[in-house]
């Protein structure tokens, strides 16, 4: 059963995640959202998603893995060994918190987005 939370609780929850130095990066949040949608993605897919170089993407994934938001594994496929990045339970919590925050923002259509700062 989902607990009902007040608006400020939902915002606070997501703001707390954004306080994590690991998530103070649009690229990493983008990776987490995409993994939230798919469960897991290959390294090539993440390269295409982010448009980053291999080194830069590896860096971001390493930081996410060190913080426990993703898990990296290597799998043998028909086209050879592939690096797979899978979202963890903690990563899913961030994704779900993001969705709840968006849901709240939708309910406040008349106010401008720029009035809200989730992290200074």
């Amino acid at each position, binding site marked *: 059963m989902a607990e009902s939370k007040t608006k400020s609780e939902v915002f606070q929850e997501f703001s707390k995640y954004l306080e994590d130095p690991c998530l103070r990066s649009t690229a990493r949040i*983008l990776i987490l959202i995409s993994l939230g*949608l*798919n469960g897991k993605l290959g390294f090539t897919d993440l390269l295409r*998603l982010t448009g980053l170089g291999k080194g830069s993407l590896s860096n971001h994934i390493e930081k996410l893995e060190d913080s426990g938001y993703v898990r990296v594994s290597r799998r043998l496929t028909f086209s050879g060994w592939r690096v797979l990045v899978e979202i963890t339970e903690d990563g899913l919590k961030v994704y779900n918190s993001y969705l709840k925050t968006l849901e709240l923002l939708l309910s406040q259509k008349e106010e401008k*987005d720029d009035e809200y700062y989730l992290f200074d």
Partner: protein
Amino acid sequence: MQVSELKQIGWKALMYQRYILRRAYAYYYASWAFTILLYLTIPLVFPQIGNFGLFVIYITIGIITTLFSGYVFRKARRRRELYGLLSGKRTYKLNLVVLIVWWVAFILAIDFGYYYFRNADYLIVNLFLIFIAIFLAVQLRASFPEGIPFEGLLASFSFGLSASLGLLLSILGFSSFSTVLWFFTVVCWFLSSYLSFERSQEELELSRY
């Protein structure tokens, strides 16, 4: 971080997800095209297999393909959820339990009804198949709220056409001709699979902007 920035990130993920979904649907079309082809050809190639044997084979193939369909529909559902939140538009919601019950009933109707109630088999099966065509169109619309890709329209139209004409033929007493229609559907679905792979690259280009 401003809220508008967070929304922008969400849109970028959503645009890229359309590419992933279109690619997943390519496998979906191919798997069902192959399944329908097996359904049509196994009795012809292996006439010695009895009704029960065919029933078991069909159920097994149907379950495997259905499980894969579930994987594609789960991706679609998650995309639809995020799309609805970012766009503020109401999106279709398909109940997962209804989905599963429907597919199980479909596989049982095809396999069980077809081989054990021969007099009414084509009528029952084609009625079910028309509902499947409608369900597919609804699922595609929900998967691609911005607009169903051409290959999706081709797949659902060819399926619906074969089911409708098959129903008409079974009423007129020419049910055996419906096999030809379903070979046509198989060709359309393999074509849809190819187009889905090819055109998913367009989504990849669009997601970069």
